[in-house]
């Protein structure tokens, strides 16, 4: 007699709940999750406020320009924790036990991805609330918030898939943590995260123009600079769709490395 195979959805939801519960048990990680992005909003908006005094700067204040970067950065960090958790499960042998259980392997990847999305919701709300409390302008209104949230969710999904794929390939927290963070930070900062393309030096401008995160930031930022337009929306959505497809495939293929 063979045990019935548990479906991918059931496994995914269970693993996501387990992953999200673990956050409560590690207060320092939870603190980092909220503290660092909020701190970044303050640092960038107050420490670098003089940048907005430059002629031609497209935002009213540096805070308006920096909020989308802070939101995406926070959601990315939250999503990466999924990868750390998976690496920890690989180290402890828990993941090996899951692989031997009668479960659909796809659920073992889907769970962490769902958890990454769920965890990103917390910094999204907190960072936006802090930014608006500090005086960020939102002329785009509810549509502006919606585009920021869409960009944040898409980025979190991509970051989770990247982290899970790396964890499955590298297999340990210490080996994967820096690679995960450096990869996402490079993508976020080698874009229009800190300054508009017109303000960049030539080499950074060339990189930012081909970096898909520039389109995603434009999607997230438009509500803070003016009304939401389709021209600023579709490139970001396309970039996120392509990124999510590629990185989810990267994560699923990573399963082959650990399957017995």
């Amino acid at each position, binding site marked *: 007699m063979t045990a019935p195979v548990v479906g991918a959805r059931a496994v995914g939801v269970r693993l996501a709940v387990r992953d999200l519960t673990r956050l409560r048990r*590690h207060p*320092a*990680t939870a*603190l*980092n999750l909220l*503290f*660092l992005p909020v*701190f*970044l909003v*303050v*640092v960038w908006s*107050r*420490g*670098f*406020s*003089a*940048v907005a*005094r*430059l002629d031609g700067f497209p935002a009213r204040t540096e805070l308006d320009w920096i909020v989308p970067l802070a939101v995406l950065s926070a959601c990315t960090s939250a999503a990466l924790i999924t990868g750390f958790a998976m690496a920890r499960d690989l180290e402890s042998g828990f993941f090996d036990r899951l692989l031997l259980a009668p479960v659909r392997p796809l659920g073992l990847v889907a769970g962490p991805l769902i958890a990454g999305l769920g965890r990103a919701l917390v910094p999204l709300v907190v960072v936006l609330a802090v930014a608006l409390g500090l005086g960020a302008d939102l002329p785009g209104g509810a549509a502006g918030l919606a585009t920021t949230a869409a960009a944040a969710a898409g980025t979190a999904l991509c970051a989770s898939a990247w982290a899970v794929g790396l964890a499955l390939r*590298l297999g340990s927290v*210490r*080996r*994967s943590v*820096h*690679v995960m*963070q*450096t990869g996402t*930070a*490079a993508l976020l*900062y*080698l874009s229009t995260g*800190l*300054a508009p393309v017109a*303000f*960049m*030096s030539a*080499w*950074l*401008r060339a990189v930012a123009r081909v970096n898909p995160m520039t389109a995603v930031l434009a999607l997230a930022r438009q509500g803070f600079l003016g009304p939401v337009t389709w021209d600023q929306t579709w490139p970001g959505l396309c970039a996120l769709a392509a990124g999510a497809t590629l990185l989810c495939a990267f994560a699923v293929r990573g399963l082959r490395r650990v399957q017995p």
Partner: protein
Amino acid sequence: MTWRAVLLLARRSVIGRFRHPSLFLPDLVGPILFTLVLWGSFERTTVLPEFPDVRSFLDFALVGAVVVGVCFSATDVSDDLQADIAGGFFDRLAVTPVSRPALVLGRLAGAAAFAGFEALAIMGVLTALGATIRGGAAGVAVIALVAMVLAVGTGGMGANLALRRGIAERAAAMFVPFAFVAVFLSSAYFPRQLMDGWFRAVAGANPVSWVVEDLRHQVVVGFDPATAARAAAMVGVLAAAGVACAVRAVRVRETAA
């Protein structure tokens, strides 16, 4: 015997770091990349009237890159110590004739050696990309030396946390926010004169700003023994406090065991 043990443990620490490029490369690449992005994004701010007289934003931010790199890589000391504790290496050493402080001093000496390498590497890369260190070889030596002492201070604080927390939670996860706040609430990457009211006051009162500005003097003005000595003295105080905390934590752990 003690110093030989410290040297051997320091050697083990450095070799352990270099054996895993995925551990040490991000400590090098991260600050360099971040500084290049700031340079590429904020070069235009050097035309603002309050901006200090510098040749380029890269010269201004060079010391910030070194300080950020050293502070964050020194937090690895806590992770390394926790790995030693979890793996039983620490307990095995504790039953040998090696003195207790040597156990942690070895890690700190290793962190200092790595910080020296890291500072030289960051300065080398940024210089190759166009930064100019007007203080010349003396300026470079001062910055590297201060980076090494700084690593002992921050590493000591991280070691203290690791030894007190054991393996319950990654000590680095707790220590990084402190390092983060100390560095980014300072003038490491942007001049105080251009900051907003309260932020400027906090950055002005932050010792990291004093150290960074004294070291920056070696880069943008030229070698000055007085400012170099002042920066070394400030990080020296931090290093003494870090070593004292770490050694005390070893003794507390020994007593508890």
